[in-house]
């Protein structure tokens, strides 16, 4: 089973109707074997309410640690306690008479002090369920660390002791590090909907202590299942993966990973090496405390939507007047987890596994978080250490001048932070780690992040202000150009122009390079609100179309397959930068222009997409897209090198699990249970004695002289 898609299957229980009426039962029995019961209330339904919309926190491991949460194999059971305030914690940790407790937290109470107290008092805590609010909190919240990817960026003690460990700038001051703690109880997130209403009601009805009295049994309890197979660290779990106890090996963990998406403005021979490049990169992934809620609006989407729009703006310009240098657009996956994507690409470049070598990378322009600009300002971050080298310094200066030139006439101003500051967490750091390459990282913050919800579940459409007037149909929303989209379009235009000059294009062409606000707004809608929209549907093949859901989850996931965001970005990039030659579906899917063509597949990648349906038809008209878009593996080199304690590369793995589910129910008092057992034992012993006595005296009891025929009595 695939843990990344690890949905738990709802096992339909064995039926059984109301009490003991055997005939009623028997019918339900046979009925339920074949059909869902009609008019039968199964006992299970009388006891349990299963929770939908629960999202767990799962266990992740790296070279030295395990983080995340887990339950025992049979699930953790605890008496519900809705935490009303921090003072209320005493009931859970000290005074409450019925431990362990399963704590329901309203999101404002999901803070580090409270979670640490619960963690330390975990013998009295069976688990935690956090009610995710429908609106973002007013204050900031980031469960990430204050210094993201502290140890795998370029700023190590050897590189420059002054900049190591975020000494100069604490990038994420709101980070409370909750995501990187280990908990020995399960933590689930629940939407604020019917389920949580049932839980609250159940708590109020049964568990709430009124005026200091202790609540009476039966109490409302909850059970959370999220047992994780892996423990200790990546080295341990990878070793266990290799142990085969049975014919079908039981895996316990999988490396995190996915695919990077890249494309070039000039077709390059994928099999040949040594192309001269100028690279533009963005980060594609995000995470949050919980497993599959990672909206990453500001930390991921704002950046890559900008680059996608810029790539589209450059399509015509680069085809008409090809600049000297080829621009390489790269979208890195897994950067949140110690730069999985970029470290892999740099590693491949160094070991000549990639179409471009590292030596041929002229410079790098990275687009970071650009969605929340104050005063339309963008900040150009560069690396003070590599700029001590004068040639690098010159190139960086040129790049900055180019960016300033590009921003002219646009509602964007670019500035440098103005003091010697290291680079913010960025993929470019991994390039610098290998070789001093000139490069700039564009961000919307001067020093610390403006993003108050960095790598949290609130970093969503609402936070980026992607909102629509009420009463709009999804189709109208898709086309509606929001203010955020307009702002990002400006940034994209600026980036596209800068890329064009940097690649050696003529400045006279600049005014013709403009990003399309319509495309930007559609992409924002698609990635942040609803992937299943008519525009995305047109641009992707039919097998992917059926998987589209609601907002995208940007958690990188495990390495076996490419995730939805990767595929969507791949198809979007192909459609936005590629061309649509007139090729049959068969040739398209076989990567050739016509039957004799054997060369094109080295230069181009062909994909057959669904297309739109003409106005008076339901049949979509598919077409072929020819582009230079390709995927490259984003799996940490540590796993290829089998170096699971690597300090250089990411070693993150995700544990596997069998089932993730939660349910609430009542628990009976110990006294009632013992009473039942006592009555049972009493009935058994009484009937044993009585039967023995009667059967030993049966001869005379049932031999009423009238019937001597009973010879055997």
């Amino acid at each position, binding site marked *: 089973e695939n843990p990344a898609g690890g949905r738990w299957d709802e096992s339909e*229980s064995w*039926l*059984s109707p*109301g*009490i*003991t*009426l*055997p*005939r*009623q*039962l*028997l*019918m339900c*029995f*046979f*009925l339920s074997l074949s059909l869902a019961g*009609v*008019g039968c209330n199964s*006992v299970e339904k*009388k006891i*349990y*309410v299963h929770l939908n919309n629960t999202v767990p926190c799962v266990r992740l491991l790296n070279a030295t640690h395990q983080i995340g949460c887990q339950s025992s194999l049979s699930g953790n*059971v605890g008496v519900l306690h809705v935490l009303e305030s921090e003072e209320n914690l005493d009931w859970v940790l000290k005074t409450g008479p019925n431990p362990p407790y399963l704590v329901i937290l309203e999101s404002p109470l999901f803070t580090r002090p409270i979670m640490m107290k619960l963690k330390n008092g975990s013998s009295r805590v069976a688990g935690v369920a956090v009610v995710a609010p429908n609106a973002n909190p007013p204050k900031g919240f980031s469960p990430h660390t204050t210094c993201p990817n502290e140890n795998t960026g370029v700023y190590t003690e050897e590189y420059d002791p002054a900049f190591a460990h975020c000494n100069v700038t604490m990038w994420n001051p709101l980070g409370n590090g909750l995501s990187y703690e280990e908990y020995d109880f399960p933590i689930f997130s629940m939407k604020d909907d019917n389920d949580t209403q049932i839980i609250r009601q159940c708590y109020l009805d049964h568990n709430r202590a009124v005026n200091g009295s202790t609540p009476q049994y*039966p109490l*409302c*309890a909850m*059970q959370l299942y999220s047992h994780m197979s892996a423990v200790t660290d990546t080295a341990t779990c990878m070793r266990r993966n290799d142990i085969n106890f049975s014919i079908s090996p039981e895996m316990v963990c999988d490396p995190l990973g996915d695919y990077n998406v890249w494309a070039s403005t000039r077709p390059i021979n994928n099999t040949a090496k040594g192309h001269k490049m100028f690279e533009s990169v963005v980060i594609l992934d995000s995470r949050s405390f919980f497993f599959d809620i990672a909206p990453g609006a500001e930390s991921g989407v704002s950046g890559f939507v900008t680059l996608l729009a810029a790539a589209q703006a450059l399509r015509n310009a680069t085809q008409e007047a090809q600049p000297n240098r080829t621009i390489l657009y790269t979208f890195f996956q897994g950067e949140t987890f110690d730069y999985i994507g970029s470290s892999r690409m740099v590693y491949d470049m160094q070991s000549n596994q990639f179409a471009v070598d590292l030596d041929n990378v002229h410079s790098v322009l990275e687009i970071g978080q650009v969605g929340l600009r104050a005063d339309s300002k963008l900040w150009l971050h560069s690396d003070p250490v590599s700029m001590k080298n004068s040639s690098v310094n010159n190139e960086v200066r040129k790049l900055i001048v180019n960016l300033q030139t590009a921003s002219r006439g646009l509602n964007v101003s670019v500035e440098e932070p103005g003091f010697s500051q290291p680079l913010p967490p960025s993929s470019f750091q991994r390039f610098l780690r290998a070789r001093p390459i000139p490069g700039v990282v564009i961000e919307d913050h001067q020093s610390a992040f403006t993003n108050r919800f960095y790598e949290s579940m609130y970093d969503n459409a609402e936070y980026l202000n992607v909102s629509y007037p009420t009463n709009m149909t999804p189709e109208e929303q898709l086309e509606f150009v929001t203010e955020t989209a307009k702002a990002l379009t400006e940034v994209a235009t600026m980036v596209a122009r800068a890329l064009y000059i940097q690649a050696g294009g003529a400045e006279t062409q600049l005014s013709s390079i403009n990003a399309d606000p319509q495309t930007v707004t559609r992409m924002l809608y698609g990635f942040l609100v609803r992937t299943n929209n008519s525009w995305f549907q047109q641009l992707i093949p039919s097998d992917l179309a059926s998987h589209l859901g609601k907002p995208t989850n940007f958690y990188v996931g495990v390495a076996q397959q490419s995730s939805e965001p990767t595929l969507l970005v791949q198809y979007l990039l192909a459609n936005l930068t590629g061309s649509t030659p007139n090729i049959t579906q068969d040739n398209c899917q076989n990567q050739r222009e016509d039957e004799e063509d054997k060369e094109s597949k080295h230069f181009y990648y062909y994909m057959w997409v669904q297309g739109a349906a003409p106005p008076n038809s339901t049949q979509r008209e598919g077409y072929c897209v020819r582009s230079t878009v390709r995927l490259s593996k984003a799996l940490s080199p540590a796993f290829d090198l089998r170096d699971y304690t690597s300090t250089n590369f990411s070693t993150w793995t995700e544990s596997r699990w069998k089932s993730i589910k939660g*349910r*609430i*129910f*009542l*628990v*009976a008092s110990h006294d*009632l*249970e*013992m009473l*039942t*057992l*006592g*009555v*049972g*034992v009493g*009935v*058994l012993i*009484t*009937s*044993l004695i009585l*039967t*023995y006595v009667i*059967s030993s005296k*049966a*001869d*005379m*009891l*049932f031999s*009423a002289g009238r019937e001597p025929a*009973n*010879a*055997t*009595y």
Partner: protein
Amino acid sequence: MTAAVFFGCTFIAFGPAIALFLFTIAREPLRVIFLIAGAFFWLVSLLLSSLVWFISVQISNKDSAAQQKGLLIFGVVLSVLLQETFRFAYYKLLKKANEGLLTLSQEETMPISIRQLAYVSGLGFGFMSGAFSVVNILADSVGPGTVGIHGDSQHYFLSSAFMTMAIILLHMFWGVVFFDACEKQRWWAVAAVVISHLIVSCLTFQNPQYVASLVPTYVILFLMGIWAFYAAGGSLRNLKLCLTCKDKDFLLANHRPR
């Protein structure tokens, strides 16, 4: 912790049946065979009634609550009638089998009396019907939860167990009375058995007012018990003799291992 509930309920529901089996049936292979055959006959009746039920539910209107309720009552009545029909069929079969056994046997008496057969087959019916009525409930009693989140009574498991015990014992008594009535051709007694079975089954429609179903069931159980006692050859005199232990000589004279 809730293993306590599971064992408690199991002992309540099957305690008397297990005791009866251990002391009166297990030692004699022939009785074990007839017990299992009885259980099988009950199962066949169940199969038939569930077939009818299945078909009728398919053709009924599934959205109409009233229709479904009516269907349930119809199913119960049909099932009771089928069970009693099979009891009669089993009686007929046993008569035939007994004749056959008699011809095979070297002794001139039957190896097992029709009264014993009545008791054994009744218990077989009871075992199987008890198992079917309570096994699902027992499976869920292991926990961790208990009934009540939707406002149902906490005593669901306990009352289910007691109901099952009553059903098992009732089947035993019905078996004895039914066979006796057939032997003596007293058809009104057969009718009484069928009617009391119908009443007990329909009483469970009172649930979840457990008192309203359990109390009348136990009254019927008690009455049927007395009837079965007389039908099996018991009398007040014998009971008195037993209780006052004035029978020492009688016992000594007649005692033989059963």
